[in-house]
């Protein structure tokens, strides 16, 4: 994964920080909020509680600088922070209290850790003298969150706050981004200390955000690429995190290499780019999967060879030389053996590579991808997008939606069948348009993440596409929509099943449908209780008009679409199979 684009340039921050600050008495809480303001934070997602009350008391006076969004559950808060970070490219900031408040963050931390999302989470903690006494709402937050944070730290003295917050932001956004948690004991929040200003951090002795780029390897990679007859590029979120979309586009256009994306890489270049040949992975496109095992040089850019992408590893691209561009040295050779590792931020390495590769077109090879795509269209896509069955399909909803958004909207998805369908068929013209829980597969992600995504990109349409199962996991965040009046369009694709698990049970467990039959409340009535307009449709003829009504509505709207109950997502690489064994039905 690549470094996050620093929207608030460190130079700006440095200049603000350089303004002479007279040493003054501040409480730890005030110093924290000062730090957030200087870091350019504008939005905080949070939920108050006993151990974080001093911070909330200080926040009362920062209303003009820091917009605090009161969520309905801390998990909703952290997913909103993730959505915000993913659309804005900035660090998401989340507040929670000690004990249950902090433990409710854990799912979001794990999600942000595996999907490299920059977050700074501030949790309150009991007074330092009570640590380890099983005090009210005391949990060992640092040890609970250690495996799911890039870095965490417990502050017990207000004097530490400026430096620790500076480190937290630097670590969260630099290199391969990730979540950071700072746990602040209540005594440190109220403690007055001699505040000498805030200096942003840009160096930690023991921390290498990015490895040094070695020209030798770039050259070797270029040699391999130039000799290749069937080169194939696979790219991931690293391109987006590194802000290297343009550099990436220039590279593939010069080298003429067919390129496929991982789910988190989607949208780095427009989905209809002539060299974009589709999605990789278990429910990716036919050609990219089959031809992974036919290419002669595989160029992986800012991606980590997740098992959902590689399928069976000992039969994955064995014929190919592998070039791997990544900012995280631990990713090199982790799953797939690399022939040439190109360590570094792809924002730097891609232009170097572009310089050295020959201008080429690989027409015959590219046509092979088109041939496979045609087969996929004939067998799967056409029926999914233009069904003749009485019931609606998930695919046709996405197709109709594309007509209205023209690919300009931010698409936020939850986890399951609808996610795969949306990511396969949604048209994405802009980067930072596909917000989904990729690595962790967190059901309940989409609704809160969509709220955050909208706060991170207020000028864009944000559409949350959610299944009936996932929606019921975090539907309390409708309250956040109600209270903030934020504009999020919600589409629930309701197949009355936990569809992905049902699909597996159908295919691999002899249709033994074990606890996948799920009832739902009247979602439209539910939305209405929160003052959100909504509609339920099951009829194809109504779809275009209702979708348009949704998009034209000022403010949020909930559209429930009743879709075919037992539809399967294809193609599919069954677990334990090679990518070449992808099934079309």
């Amino acid at each position, binding site marked *: 994964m690549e470094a996050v684009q620093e929207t608030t340039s460190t130079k700006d921050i440095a200049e603000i920080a350089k303004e002479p600050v007279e040493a003054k008495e501040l409480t730890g809480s005030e110093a924290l909020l000062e730090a957030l303001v200087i870091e350019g934070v504008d939005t905080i997602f949070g939920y108050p509680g006993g151990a974080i009350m001093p911070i909330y008391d200080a926040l009362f006076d920062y209303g003009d600088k820091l917009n605090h969004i009161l969520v309905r559950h801390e998990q909703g808060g952290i997913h909103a922070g993730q959505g915000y970070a993913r659309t804005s490219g900035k660090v998401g900031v989340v507040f929670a209290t000690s004990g249950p408040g902090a433990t409710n963050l854990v799912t979001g931390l794990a999600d942000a850790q595996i999907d490299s999302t920059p977050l700074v989470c501030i949790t309150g903690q009991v007074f330092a003298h009570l640590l380890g006494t099983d005090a009210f709402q005391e949990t060992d937050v640092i040890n609970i969150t250690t495996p799911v944070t890039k870095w965490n730290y*417990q502050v017990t003295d207000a004097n530490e706050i400026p430096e620790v917050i500076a480190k937290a932001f630097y670590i969260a956004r630099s290199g391969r981004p990730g979540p950071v948690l700072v746990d602040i004991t209540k005594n440190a929040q109220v403690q007055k200390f001699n505040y000498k200003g805030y200096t942003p951090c840009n160096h930690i*002795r*023991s921390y290498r955000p990015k*490895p040094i780029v070695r020209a030798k390897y770039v050259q070797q990679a270029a040699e391999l690429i130039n000799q290749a007859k069937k080169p194939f590029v696979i790219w991931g979120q690293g391109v987006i995190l590194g802000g290297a979309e343009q550099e990436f586009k220039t590279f593939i256009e010069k080298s003429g290499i067919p390129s496929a994306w991982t789910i988190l890489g989607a949208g780095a270049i427009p989905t209809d780019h002539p060299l974009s040949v589709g999605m990789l992975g278990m429910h990716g496109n036919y050609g990219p999967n089959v031809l992974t095992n036919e290419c002669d040089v595989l160029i992986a850019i800012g991606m980590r060879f997740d098992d959902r992408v590689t399928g069976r590893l000992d039969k994955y691209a064995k014929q190919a030389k592998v070039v791997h561009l990544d900012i995280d*040295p*631990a990713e*090199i050779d*982790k799953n797939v053996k*690399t022939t040439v*590792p190109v360590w570094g931020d792809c924002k730097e390495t891609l232009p170097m590579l572009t310089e050295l590769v020959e201008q080429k077109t690989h027409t015959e090879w590219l046509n092979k991808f088109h041939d496979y795509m045609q087969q996929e269209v004939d067998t799967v896509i056409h029926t999914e997008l233009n069904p003749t069955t009485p019931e609606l399909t998930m695919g046709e909803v996405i197709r109709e939606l594309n007509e209205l958004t023209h690919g300009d909207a931010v698409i936020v998805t939850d986890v399951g069948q609808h996610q795969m369908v949306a990511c396969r068929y949604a048209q994405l013209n802009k980067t930072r348009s596909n917000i989904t829980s990729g690595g962790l597969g967190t059901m309940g992600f989409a609704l809160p993440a969509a709220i955050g995504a909208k706060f991170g990109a207020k000028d864009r349409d944000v559409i949350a596409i959610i299944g009936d199962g996932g929606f019921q996991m975090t539907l309390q965040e409708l309250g956040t929509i109600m209270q903030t009046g934020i504009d999020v369009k919600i589409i629930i694709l309701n197949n009355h099943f936990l569809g992905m698990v049902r699909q597996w049970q159908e295919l691999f467990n002899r249709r033994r449908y074990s606890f996948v039959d799920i009832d739902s409340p009247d979602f439209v009535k539910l939305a209405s209780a929160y003052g959100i307009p909504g509609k339920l449709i099951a009829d194809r003829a109504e779809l275009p008009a209702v979708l348009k009504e949704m998009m034209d509505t000022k403010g949020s709207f909930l559209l429930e679409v009743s879709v075919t109950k037992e539809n399967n997502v294809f193609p599919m690489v069954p677990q334990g199979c090679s990518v070449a064994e992808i099934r079309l039905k």
Partner: protein
Amino acid sequence: MAEELNLLKMSNQDIKEEFNITVYTENQIGLLNRIAIIFTRRKINFDSLNTSPSEVDRIHRFNIVITETEDVVRKLCRQIEKQVEVLKVYYHTNEDVIWQEMALYKVSTDVIAEKVSVERLLRENGARAVVIRKDYTVFETTGHREETDNLISILQPYGLIEFVRSARVAIIKDSEGFNAKLREFERLEPGEDVIENEFLNDGDKVFTM
């Protein structure tokens, strides 16, 4: 021939052996846990773990011993090195380090006094008395695992009361220490240190197509 070599390489990779992992770190609360969970998450047990100061003031040094394949050890080291407060990680086989473990043995003083042979055995095994009391004597010996183990079996017939062995400490034979490395780390620019890649080490062979 090339294929045979490949096979040999493959099989070498699959063989588990003892590796000594040396980790240079900042001295920070919670870092031990951060490093430990990298192993426990993968259900790998520590044979030995020692933390101590290093040759550089305020820099800590972990000595970890595990029995694993080199491939796994390499991946673990990269995960450790990724931690914010970790400066550098090295791994070595037993041949590449000079290592010692210390052991203490408590034996009844009466037995020692009665049986002259015990004293001789202790001397032969390089043990020395640390404490001599009326009721018991504590011996200490330092050496490789086999040596400290050996003394257990020797003392067992004479009523070994208590035994304890320390974690392993190891010095890397081929190392110039961490002072120079640290100066490099203190510069803003990242280091030039190359992470080994077995394919690149094969040089030209890889690039013939």
